[in-house]
């Protein structure tokens, strides 16, 4: 590939921008000083590709349209003129952008500029030189022979590889993608060290183009702030997981072919995302402990570059009244871990813990500001000043400790007013700061408790018996629930309720019969027998009292499968009971049936009937 170095410009000053000063300057007095931004993107391209040159003018209401001089090897044409407005706290801002389309027709390195742009009213803007490289167009087949590592690779770098403990540094990940390789937005970094290094989220810095090995690469840069927590050597050998956008395999779809499938394919699912792992060359950093030599006495671990400001108010107080010291620390570094400097004021002051009242930290930039507030109380009127406050930090770039000092602060302390006050709490915000007045001494002893308990008595709720007793409610509720459900069931199903009641009623009647037998009372005996049969079968078959007849009962039992012998016995017993009850014959009453055997037979029959499903 032959490349020319066409680094000239027709005349350095003579080739100044030919400005068409057709425009009037703004009458608006409020406009800011004119500002001009000049850029060409991309700065590396192939022959035939188009680049864009933009000249943005701010602070001039109607600037003259600039013109780019002709350049050998380039086709230059005016593309557009855009006007944009923005408003903020500082007032409104008008920006006018002139765009030119630049198309190279031959290879080489070209320099656009420097130019002078006359804005009118004797205002002239100096536009710097911008170098643009033009390469030969891509040749078919060359990319196919290249490996994935040539098409897509990543580089991990650190702002410094020799660090101090607690130093904040930048880790930059640069992803190179050859032209034609589409990398999605999602990028993940795997296998980073899990301890010793605290790493913030990666943030994308932007994209650009670069020439590597005579090939143009689209470059995306990501940066994260990291903090070395402990001394040692750390090796970063991460895997970068990228999503690659590749054309989706097309399937022949008659529907889409017929109804303009190409149009929809362009928008929906023409590309699919495929994860690709790229392994950048390992990066090794060494972290050394902060030096012990020359470490200032009040050093509390701040590493970076900080500024420090302290303010004391009020400067005139009575002894025993609080003085508030406001301490502001700002800068770059491990500001997240910075604590308030210790105030060494001796016994002349009662000193309270410092409180952080404001915190404004940008973790992605590892910079910010912390404001602390600390309360001190002068003990006597002899105090004339608050000693100097020092804040020390370690500057890793100089490799040395720095001590910043504020004060001493002169204060005027008048004798105490007689009221003993004690500050016990200073709340987070100055607005909430309040002073609580307490007694000047602790309260006296408490009397003996009314009841002495030992440790096990106090933790009664830890005993096993306590937990066991807590099982009673669910058990009782379970039983109760079952009982209520059964009761409801019986209330709703009368036949079932009567069926369950049948044997109990029969047993009661049989007991009466036994009693009559022992009293030698045949009438009552047969009455009880008849009652047992009538009640039992009435409940069992869910019959009304008048419906319980021998025919109905026997028919039901026959259907239920009562055997012949028991059927006959029952039939005979029913008939006998009816005879005795309704005949009223004394002879019948004294019959042989008036016996224990009859009762046993009845018992047997009822047991048999109980087993029959009717």
């Amino acid at each position, binding site marked *: 590939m032959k490349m020319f170095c066409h680094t000239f410009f027709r005349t350095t000053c003579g080739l100044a921008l030919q400005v068409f000063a057709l425009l009037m300057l703004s009458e608006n007095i409020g406009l800011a000083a004119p500002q001009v931004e000049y850029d060409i993107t991309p700065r590396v391209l192939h022959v035939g590709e188009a680049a864009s040159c933009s000249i943005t003018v701010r602070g001039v209401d109607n600037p003259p349209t600039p013109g780019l001089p002709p350049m050998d090897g380039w086709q230059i044409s005016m593309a557009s003129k855009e006007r944009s407005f923005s408003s903020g706290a500082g007032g409104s801002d008008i920006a006018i952008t002139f765009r030119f389309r630049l198309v190279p027709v031959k290879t080489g390195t070209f320099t656009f500029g420097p130019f002078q742009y006359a804005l009118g009213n004797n205002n002239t803007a100096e536009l710097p030189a911008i170098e643009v490289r033009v390469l030969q167009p891509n040749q078919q087949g060359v990319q196919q022979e290249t490996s994935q590592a040539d098409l897509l690779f990543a580089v991990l770098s650190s702002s410094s590889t020799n660090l101090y403990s607690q130093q904040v540094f930048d880790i930059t990940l640069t992803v190179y993608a050859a032209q034609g390789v589409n990398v999605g937005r999602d990028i993940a970094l795997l296998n980073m060290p899990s301890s010793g290094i605290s790493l913030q989220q990666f943030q994308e810095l932007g994209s650009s183009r670069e020439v590597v090995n005579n090939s143009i690469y689209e470059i995306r840069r990501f940066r994260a702030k990291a903090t070395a927590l402990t001394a040692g050597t750390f090796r970063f050998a991460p895997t970068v997981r990228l999503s690659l956008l590749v054309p989706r395999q097309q399937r022949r779809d008659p529907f889409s072919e017929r109804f303009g499938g190409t149009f929809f394919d362009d928008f929906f699912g023409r590309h699919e995302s495929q994860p690709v792992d790229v392994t950048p060359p390992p990066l090794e950093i060494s972290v050394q402990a902060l030096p012990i030599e020359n470490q200032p006495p009040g050093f509390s671990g701040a590493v970076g570059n900080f500024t420090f400001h302290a303010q004391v108010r009020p400067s005139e107080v009575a002894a025993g009244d609080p003085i508030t010291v406001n301490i502001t620390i700002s800068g770059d570094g491990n500001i997240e*871990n910075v604590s308030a400097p210790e105030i060494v004021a001796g016994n002349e002051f009662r000193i309270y*813990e410092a409180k952080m009242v404001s915190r404004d930290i940008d973790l992605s930039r590892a910079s910010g500001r912390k404001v602390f507030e600390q309360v001190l109380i002068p003990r006597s009127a002899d105090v004339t000043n608050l000693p100097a406050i020092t804040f020390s930090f370690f500057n890793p770039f100089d490799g040395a400790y720095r001590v910043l000092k504020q004060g001493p602060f002169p204060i005027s302390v008048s004798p105490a007013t007689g009221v003993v006050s004690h*500050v016990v709490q200073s709340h987070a915000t100055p607005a909430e700061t309040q002073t609580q007045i307490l007694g000047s001494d*602790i309260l006296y002893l*408490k009397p*003996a408790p009314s009841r002495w*308990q030992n*440790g096990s008595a106090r933790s009664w709720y830890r005993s096993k018996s306590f937990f066991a007793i807590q099982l009673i409610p669910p058990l009782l*509720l379970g039983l*109760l629930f079952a009982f209520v459900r059964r009761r409801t069931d019986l209330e709703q199903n009368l036949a079932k309720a009567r069926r369950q009641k049948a044997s109990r009623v029969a047993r009661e009647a049989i007991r009466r019969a036994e009693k009559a037998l022992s009293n030698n009372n045949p009438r009552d005996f047969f009455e009880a027998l008849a009652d047992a049969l009538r009640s039992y079968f009435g409940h069992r078959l869910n019959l009304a009292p008048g419906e319980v007849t021998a025919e109905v009962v026997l028919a039901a039992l026959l259907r239920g499968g009562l055997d012949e012998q028991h059927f006959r016995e029952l039939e005979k017993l029913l008939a006998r009971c009816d005879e005795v009850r309704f005949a009223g014959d004394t002879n019948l009453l004294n019959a042989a049936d008036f016996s224990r055997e009859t009762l046993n037979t009845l018992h047997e029959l009822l047991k048999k009937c109980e087993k029959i499903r009717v």
Partner: protein
Amino acid sequence: MKSRAQECNIHASLQRAILAIWICVLLFPSVSHALTAEQGNEWPVARIEQLFHEAGRAYDKGQFDEAASQYRQILESGHGSKETLFNLGNALFRSGRVAQAVLQYRRAQYLNPRDPDISANLRFALQTTGATVPQHSALSRFFFHVSKEEWVTLATASYWIAAAAFAMFLLLPAPFKSAGIRLLVVFVALLIVSLLGIGAWVQLCRRPEVVIIKPQQQALFAPLEQNATPHFALTEGSIVRAVEFSSGWVKIASGDREGWVKHDVCEPVCISGEL
């Protein structure tokens, strides 16, 4: 008709039996409390009371170390009470051991968080050293306003009353069921709040508060014997939260900062078995 009446009698007797059992069990905490109090006493109560009064007399005479020793004997005998802890705190404060006094006041406060005397002396002791109490969220303050024992009692009572309300709901006829439901909802809600309160105290024991008992301490960035970078200073008597324990080191949290201190520098407020 007769059988119906008998059925009603059975139901009534069943209800009475259940009610009787509930009443008995509701009284269980106090009964159990009393029983265990009697059973566990190795020292007679008279001996404990005598020691308590002797300690008080020693305190009045200015023999604070002697008083502290006697209060400690009472505690070691297993008869811890907020009064003993409070008085021990006073004796320690008078003998100049302010951080130890803060520890005992805080322990007493755990047993009775709403006692104004304990709060006043704790604040005074903290004020003396310049230390502060960790700030809890409003919800945590609510939970810690009631002691764990009180939360457990409330939870137990709510549990049983909620069970009784559910039984009422099952047993009572329809017009009274809504009352049972209302009672149930109220006590279930109370039970949930109580359980959250217990949970807050349990959490406080898992990540206990510790009191810095040695002067001029600094929390370090890492638990290293040598070359460790100091992070922030700790005032003696400061009450901070322990986050992690690791072989002789404790990771503590003070406000929004975390750092490591040696195990012997601090003492946990929560004692196993006390809460």
